[in-house]
């Protein structure tokens, strides 16, 4: 069957079955579920950290001024030689003996050969411990946060919302690309036993940067 005819056939069948002339937006949908959370900012951050730890991710708290040192320390303790960073991040952390590859269309093998990746994020959702990447210049192409086995993600407290609907409210435009990460790669396909690290990064470390001065003058 030719493509135009197939398309017409399916649409005709659907129209005949639904008899709907008007194409309404989802106007009739009652949205009475919780949209905004009720926790104070400090508790939201705490919840985000708790959820991430439940997934087996490591969470490190930092102030904005400490961030370079915390990042360097994380990279040091990973113990690798080569790390990939997206083009929007300048890897000027105080660390020596480590090579940073800036991803300007790096081939897959080269990314695969790296010991880890450092990215920022678009948002964090505390209720589910989710990190949202929209793959901007500081978050990187999808492939760089996928192939290396260790992902260090820098998340700012001002980016963290309590509920999923709050994240959607923060999106001015729907993203063309997005990845929602809730803990490291996992499977429960064998006897429902949760195993970490199937194909995605086995280690997810999150630096939670308090850029709202929530915990006083630490």
């Amino acid at each position, binding site marked *: 069957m030719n493509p135009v005819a*197939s398309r017409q056939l399916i649409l005709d069948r659907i129209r005949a079955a639904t008899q709907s002339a008007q194409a309404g937006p*989802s106007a009739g949908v*009652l949205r*009475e579920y919780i949209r905004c959370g009720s926790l104070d900012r400090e508790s939201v951050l705490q919840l985000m950290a708790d959820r991430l730890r439940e997934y087996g991710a490591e969470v490190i708290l930092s102030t904005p001024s400490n961030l370079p040192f915390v990042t360097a320390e994380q990279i040091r303790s990973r113990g690798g030689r080569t790390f990939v960073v997206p083009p929007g991040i300048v890897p000027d952390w105080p660390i020596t003996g480590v090579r940073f590859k800036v991803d300007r269309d790096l081939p897959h093998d080269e990314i695969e050969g790296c010991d880890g990746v450092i990215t920022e994020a678009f948002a964090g959702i505390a209720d589910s411990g989710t990190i949202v990447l929209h793959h901007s210049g500081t978050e990187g192409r*999808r492939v760089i946060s*996928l192939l290396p086995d260790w992902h260090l993600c820098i998340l700012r407290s001002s980016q963290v919302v309590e509920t999923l609907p709050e994240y959607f409210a923060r999106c001015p435009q729907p993203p*063309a690309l997005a*990845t929602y990460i809730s803990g490291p790669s996992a499977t429960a396909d*064998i006897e429902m036993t949760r195993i970490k690290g*199937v194909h995605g990064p086995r280690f997810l470390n999150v630096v939670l940067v308090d850029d709202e001065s929530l915990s006083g003058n630490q």
Partner: protein
Amino acid sequence: MSHTVLDPRVAPPFPEAALPVLRNAQLRKNVAHATDVIQAKRAALVAEKADWQELRAAAAAIRANVLENLSAYLEEFESRCTAAGGVLHWAPDAAEARSMIIDILRDERATEVIKIKTMTSAEIELNPALQAVGVSAIETDLAELILQLGDDEPSHIVVPALHVNRSQVREIFARRMGLSDLSDDPQALTAAARSYLRKKFLAVPTAISGANFLIAETGAVSIVESEGNGRMCLTLPRTLITLAGIEKVIPRFQDLEVMLQVLARSATGERMNPYTSLWSGVTPGDGPQRFHVVLLDNGRSSILTRRTERQTLRCIRCGACQNTCPVYRQTGGHAYGSVYAGPIGAILTPQLMQMHHAQSLPYASSLCGACYEVCPVKINIPEVLIELRAQVVDQERRESRRWFDPMFLGMKVANFAFASSLRFRLAQWLGRVGLRVFTRKDGWIHRLPNLGARWTVTRDLRGLPDQTFRQWWAGRKEGR
């Protein structure tokens, strides 16, 4: 493992297919364990959600709205996806979908293709068709890999290998990957799958996926997964083909705030699954540069016609109804003879077959309603089951061979007997006398011949009392 047939056109009727499973203690144990674990996790996470019923109501309304305006949303999806660089194909049936995919693969000169778990591809029996034209399909989801290497079929929509236990997985992997000293520790088995597939992800330039959601507003596709095999297939290859049922569309990006919340909790008992991917068409420099969407009808549009049955297509494939179903929990998925097993399969499969096959499935239920209670999009499965049973009976009514069906004749006789009180009392008397032969001293009937054996093969029957209620009542009045 004997090879199971999951083609509703040739599968044996449900009661027949269920019998061997009911005698397989290992399989029943595997199924019970897996469904117990998911159910407990789901229940705990649903309980912590104060607005669960509001989320369900919104999810049901979003999906119902989609189905009412399906053609408009599909056209909107088509124009946005095309504008973003995707190529759309409309497949009226399974054969068309297969040949469209094969044509694309031929253009790509593909000999291998990596696949993300997609039940829709199992529905159209894609893998054997690919094999026939010399393309080997590599399943990358752990459960699908277990099934593919074990020459087995899926038995659950979300956890397709839940009927296989760790020692069986060890045996399959050791044999097919040539790893003789592999242990049966799930960690080791998972690691074996990781290294087995890693090379494929980096080398194979073509991937096939299903879809969880198509977003009309943006032309984006979304896939939820746990392992990262999905992200690999969506990111590394040069070409991506997404096969999706026409009902998978949702109106707006923002509708995901409802759908993602109910899906993860219902499917795997997680607040959110580890990875959710969203992409619109082609993004220069990031991911596949050629992107095809094959929209599959294959009987779906005919389900839209009637209001009661239409709700079947709200399904977002979470599998919660399977985990909670007292029938599925005993028989597992293969007895349903379809990739869609359990309560949703019992209503979806015969309808996709336009009621020409799988007519035994609407009866594979006790109508207890547990499926309706857990369904995140509020599909009233018992209501649809009853409607489909009525259709099956109507079909049988038209068949002349019904006169040879003992059940039909029994109903006819009952109809005749129940129509007059004299005949009814006579039938009662005959029944009492007749059954007395089979009633044991303990007052129970353990075994009946012929048609009656259908009852007594699995349970005992209480013997008829010496007098009827009417007789007892009459005697009581006289005694006063």
